[in-house]
């Protein structure tokens, strides 16, 4: 045996380490969870766990703090999920913390997320049951997506109808878009408008710079002054004239004429009065007839 002892211990070590590695592998794969040491358990009930599996991660504040240990059906509508969590985080999880099931990316594994509560101050104990939020299922997302897609379908249908109407319709807007004759007439109108505005432009230019009376009326200051003084003169002259007229009235030669004129006016007034009365009578009569 003496000459064998040289390699015997090496072989022993080889086999021992190999077996230890095997045991370690089996142990960890079998547990497939916390490598962390001291742990405690929490429970939560869900209506559906959405594909959560034993060994999925549990997150608190975004940190992986544990794994799912057991998933048990209790009734046909509730599933009890038990998860193990590192002892270190026990002090941070309060009694009103809530568990929800989320997903790690679009294709990733499901994870349980523990959201901290707001009011409670007492920390959770081992095997406590915390409340749960129902997970957002992919189906729900798809369902809401479907309704919006349906709406989009309706909208596009209406849009298609609208465009068909626009192409074939008789309305003003449709004519605006598709009727050639309307377009031509509109074009003619616009051409006319163009000539009109062109003429108008010419007119305004002339008005601004022209020599005509109208142009002068609007632009020439001197003309305005002249006009002003003319009007002044006219005023004074009419005043003089009215004085002349007063004088003429009292003149003997002309008094007769003015008296005659006054009389004729009075007569005319009286006739007018008579005519009015007659008309009123006739109106009253016609109303009577209608009543009968």
């Amino acid at each position, binding site marked *: 045996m003496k000459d064998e002892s040289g390699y*015997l211990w090496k072989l022993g070590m080889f086999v021992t380490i190999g077996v230890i590695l095997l045991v370690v592998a089996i142990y960890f794969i079998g547990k497939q969870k916390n490598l962390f040491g001291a742990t405690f358990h929490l429970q939560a009930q869900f209506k559906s766990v959405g594909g959560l599996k034993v060994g999925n991660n549990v997150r608190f504040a975004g940190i992986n703090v544990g794994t799912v240990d057991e998933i048990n059906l209790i009734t046909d509508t509730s599933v009890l999920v038990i998860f193990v969590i590192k002892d270190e985080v026990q002090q941070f999880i309060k009694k009103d913390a809530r568990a929800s099931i989320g997903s790690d*990316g679009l294709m990733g594994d499901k994870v349980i997320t523990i959201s901290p509560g707001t009011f409670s101050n007492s920390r959770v104990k081992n095997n406590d049951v915390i409340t749960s939020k129902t997970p957002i299922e992919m189906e729900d997302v798809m369902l809401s997506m479907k309704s919006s897609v349906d709406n989009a379908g309706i909208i596009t249908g209406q849009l298609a109808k609208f465009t068909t109407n626009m192409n074939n319709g008789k309305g003003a807007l449709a004519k605006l878009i598709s009727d050639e004759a309307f377009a031509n007439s509109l074009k003619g109108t616009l051409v006319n408008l163009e000539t009109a505005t062109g003429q108008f432009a010419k007119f305004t230019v002339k008005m601004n710079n022209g020599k005509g009376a109208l142009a002068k009326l609007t632009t020439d200051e001197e003309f305005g002054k002249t006009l002003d003084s003319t009007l002044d003169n006219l005023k004074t002259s009419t005043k003089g004239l009215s004085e002349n007229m007063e004088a003429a009235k009292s003149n003997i030669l002309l008094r007769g004429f003015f008296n005659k004129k006054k009389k004729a006016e009075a007569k005319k007034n009286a006739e007018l009065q008579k005519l009015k009365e007659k008309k009123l009578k006739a109106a009253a009569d016609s109303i009577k007839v209608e009543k009968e």
Partner: protein
Amino acid sequence: MLAYLRSTFNDTGSVVLFTGRFFKEAVGRPFEWNEFIKQCYATGNKSLPLVGITGFIMGLVLTIQSRPTLARFGAETMLPGMVAVSLVREVIPVVTALICAGKISSGIGAELGSMKVTEQIDAMEVSAINPYKYLVVTRIMAATLMIPLLTIFSDFVGVFGGFVGFNIHSEANLSRYFSLVLTSVDFIDMVPATIKTFFFGFAIGLIGCYKGFTAANGTASVGIAANSAVVAASFSIFIIDLLAVQLTDFLTT
């Protein structure tokens, strides 16, 4: 053609007889413990560096090669798990067995072949030592037990190689990496893969011994024995792997 068929069936028949004799001799006393341990050392310890380096490189290379495909889906976190599963299930057992077929099977074939040629085996028989017990049983037993152990070592080294490969482009410390690996690797990956390595080891030892033990006379036959042992052992590893995978697939689904 007929002669060829006949020799083929002859070979098959003698392999079966050889295997049957192994089981008969393995059960009967006495068991050559010292020689067995020596052979375990020769197959196990001496192959460890080779197998370890191969496993490391396989893990590293598989990780690097798989990354672009997974990165296209943004699923790089699945890389450690995926690589570990393929390593543990298929790559490491088969590569380890192939390496050992090259190293151990040819070694046994050459050793026994030269013993046969130099008539040492006949001399043993004359000196009342059962050469079958002393040479064949110990070697086959050693190979059968050591290949699974080597595979387990290689599994770990290979996963570590994957860790090194993963850290070329990404960042993950060792515990994070191993937790990613452990979320993917399950018993169903580990157990059948380990069980089939026993058969790999048995085939390696058996074929090496058979080829050596039945070597013809003459120096050239030593080379032939070593060469054909490697070829036959490698080939039989693939056949066994095919059967094992089919069986696992059938049993687990």
